[in-house]
């Protein structure tokens, strides 16, 4: 049901020419994804998706639209080659999923590696009931440090590109 809604919203976003509507459709898409993640019991991801996908990124997209324009340019012509490439890639990806283990299969390779170890040892070793947190912050602390650095670098990059400097309160210096 949620997947059907996702498909409808995605198709509507592709067809729609008004960029304002497209941004709002993407917000709806993110909200539906968050609901999907919740139904898959991935609440941490759902919270991130709801806050970032629906909230922050929508606001940033709207800010971009208010700086540029609401209308998409008409495509000069429709060619068949991109469609063929997309369809072939999609078919290859679907073909790849045929060999994947069934959803929730306990014998899947991803459950046989370290996941079971983390689940068994987390409470005894860290005393943290939420295994997601103990894996992210403790077992995989280096990775999360790297992610935090990535977030910081991304923010730094945006600040450098857009060239906002303080001093001119609320007004950017034109590059």
């Amino acid at each position, binding site marked *: 049901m949620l997947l059907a809604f996702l498909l409808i919203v995605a198709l509507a976003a592709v067809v729609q020419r008004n960029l304002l509507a497209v941004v709002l459709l993407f917000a709806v898409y993110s909200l539906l994804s968050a609901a999907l993640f919740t139904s898959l019991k991935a609440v941490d991801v759902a919270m991130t998706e709801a806050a970032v996908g629906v909230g922050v990124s929508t606001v*940033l997209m709207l800010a971009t639209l208010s700086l540029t324009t609401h209308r998409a340019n008409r495509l000069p012509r429709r060619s068949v080659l991109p469609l063929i490439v997309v369809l072939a890639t999609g078919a290859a990806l679907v073909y790849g999923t045929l060999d994947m283990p069934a959803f929730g299969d306990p014998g899947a390779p991803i459950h046989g590696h370290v996941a079971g170890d983390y689940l068994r040892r987390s409470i005894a070793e860290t*005393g943290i009931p*939420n295994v997601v*947190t103990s894996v992210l912050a403790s077992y995989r602390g280096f990775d999360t440090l790297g992610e935090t650095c990535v977030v910081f670098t991304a923010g730094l990059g*945006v600040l450098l590109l857009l060239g906002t400097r303080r001093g001119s*309160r609320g007004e*950017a210096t034109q590059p």
Partner: protein
Amino acid sequence: MTDHVVLRVIGKLLIPFILAYGLYVQAHGDFGPGGGFQAGVIVAAGLILYGLIHGVAATQRVVPPRLVEALAAVGVLIYAGVGVVTLVLGGNFLGYGALDHSPSHGQHTGVFLVELGVGVAVASVMLAIFYAFASRKPIASGGGRR
């Protein structure tokens, strides 16, 4: 947008709860869903909502851009600093067991501090990006309009 009474009143009602929820998610990440990243984006979303209703200038009076830029670096430094502290205390880098008398308590302290660093960094980076976008003048080209 400051003349929209409904938006201002609803915003006033919602924003304190959004910020408090962000703090809850930050502090409660050990036991429930959430953690530093989620808390950071929730706090940032609350402040961005304030910015949408009252304008960017008002938000920048509450949280100055200079502070935001500094806090983004402070967040990363908190995280890496925990690693350095555990090194100095005789453990491995980010081996939280060295932080306290028992490894389990050390894990709690370490995870809390690390998540705090992530939350501070994420919230300030989101806010910095919002400031960077929102305080630009339109550069419309090709017949665009505001």
